């Protein structure tokens, strides 16, 4: 069973402490929701987990082996990533982009293309296969990238705000898919600002909610935590409240009690 573990990991970029004292584990079947204000280090943490910062401090191990000692192909066999922003340099056909995510596998193109077709089907984007990247809407592009992550067939998956730019229906569909991937045995770490989307994941109560502020983990709880609203309020320096609709929990921001990030001086990490 694949497992990524960080022990007292840290990172400085350009002399600035971006991450420090991070200890975290992600294994098969886990679902970690990573939350926290802008600039708190969420994306940096994901990139550290992926081995994109060889200069990072502390221990990052994949199945017990130091991540930086592994070849890129070994890492790609364990970890896949949907970045927050993605700027392809050329308008390639969609099928090619998804197939390219299987770079680590030595296989003929037609095998990769078949896997890419299945992955596109899985995210409901089979009809996009023949289109070119520059003909897609933001939401379509996001689904194509989701398909690329699925096609890579790595057991541990990192998503950085995967529902960005999506309409509500596609947001929900995306989170359902993350839930399905987890149910299929994947370990998922997902950055999100919208805690309510987690409700659409099967077995939501077992989701681990990890909150970051100023490069440190300051909140580590479960979605089922009855005090989750309080934890989020302290994390975001805002006032969260909860109401229940039957068994479904809804979290909302009490706008009248929240100063707003521009007024709350020092609010940005």
């Amino acid at each position, binding site marked *: 069973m694949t497992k990524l573990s960080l022990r007292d990991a840290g990172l400085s970029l350009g002399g600035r402490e971006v991450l420090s004292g991070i200890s975290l584990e992600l294994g098969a079947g886990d679902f970690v929701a990573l939350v926290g204000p802008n600039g708190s280090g969420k994306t940096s943490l994901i990139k550290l987990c992926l081995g994109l910062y060889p200069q990072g401090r502390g221990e990052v191990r994949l199945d017990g082996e130091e991540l930086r000692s592994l070849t*890129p192909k070994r890492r790609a066999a364990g*970890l896949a990533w949907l970045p927050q922003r993605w700027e392809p*340099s050329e308008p*390639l056909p969609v099928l090619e*982009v998804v197939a390219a995510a299987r770079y680590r596998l030595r296989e003929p193109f037609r095998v990769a293309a078949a896997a890419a077709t299945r992955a596109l089907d899985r995210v409901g984007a089979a009809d996009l296969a023949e289109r070119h990247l520059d003909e897609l809407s933001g939401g379509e592009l996001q689904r194509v990238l989701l398909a690329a992550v699925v096609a890579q067939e790595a057991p541990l998956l990192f998503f950085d705000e995967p529902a960005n730019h999506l309409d509500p229906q596609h947001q929900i569909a995306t989170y359902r898919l993350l839930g399905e991937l987890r149910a299929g045995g994947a370990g998922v770490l997902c950055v999100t600002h919208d805690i309510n989307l987690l409700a659409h994941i099967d077995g939501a109560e077992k989701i681990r909610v990890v909150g970051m502020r100023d490069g440190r983990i300051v909140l580590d709880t479960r979605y089922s935590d009855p005090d989750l609203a309080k934890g989020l309020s302290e994390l975001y320096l805002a006032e969260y409240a909860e109401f229940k609709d039957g068994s479904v929990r809804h979290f909302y921001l009490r706008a009248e009690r929240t100063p707003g990030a521009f007024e709350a001086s020092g609010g940005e990490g």
Partner: protein
Amino acid sequence: MNRSALGGVSLVLHAAACLLLLAVVPLIGPSLDVPSGDFILWQLRVPRLLVGALVGGTLGLSGAVYQALFRNGLATPSTVGTLAGATLGALFVLVLGGGSALGLPAVAVAAFLGAVGLSALVLAVAARQRASMSDVLLAGIAVTLAASALSTGLQYTADSRALFAAAQWSLGSLPQVGYKAVLWLLPFTLLSSLLMLLLARPLQALVAGEEVAATQGVSIARVRALALGAGALGVAACVAWCGPIAFVGLLVPHLVRGLGAVTYRRLLPLSWLYGATLLVWCDTLARLVWPGGELPVGVVTAALGAPALIFVVARRRR
């Protein structure tokens, strides 16, 4: 416009068309039905065709590879200082004088060494894992500017005969007698082209960006070193023999994309084929268009290449 106008046409058909276009070239020009016809055909036109094909193919392919690596359609074989280094090396010999070395013209040897030397400097920057491709681009520009300044300085001290030789060299040309150039170009260009053709998969993955490609299993530092190293080696050999021929490396990848090749499995081999065909035909024009003598092929590639590039790019933005 249908985006893949010729995209469905198989590589084999493209290759056949290119080979046919190349094969007729030795028959073009003054009649071979003279006593020296055999000599003209086998000692002048055929070696010139082969040199043109090897050089054009290598320049076209390296252009495609560099554009992928830098994620920039303006990258050319000269982006990492290869051409500036060759020019500097050649000028040293042309201005300061020199005979031959290893039975080769000293100009070619010096140009090759200059090209390899300056490219190696830029490669050293590229091989550092933390360097971004814009760092590499900057290093290439810095090296090119420095080498150009030195070249200008050298020319300033030169006499008029050396200046004329330098100007002639800098335009690029393919005239060859016999097979010496073919035999020297063959190992460098074939090794370089083969290595670059093998990079189709990682270059395709790089379209997603270096970080995404890295998480998909691409070894970024290795691909950079291989692509730039192989490209510089092949281009250095070409420039050493034929001078800095303009526009082939920049134009050909755009032209081939215009033909509908979007994936690197097709783009790379087609860039080689059409680079070879384009340069050979430009050279054929160069020796026919001016009845009194012949133009340097670099003049023809630049004169035809610039408008062709503008046409291709303008048509692409629908």
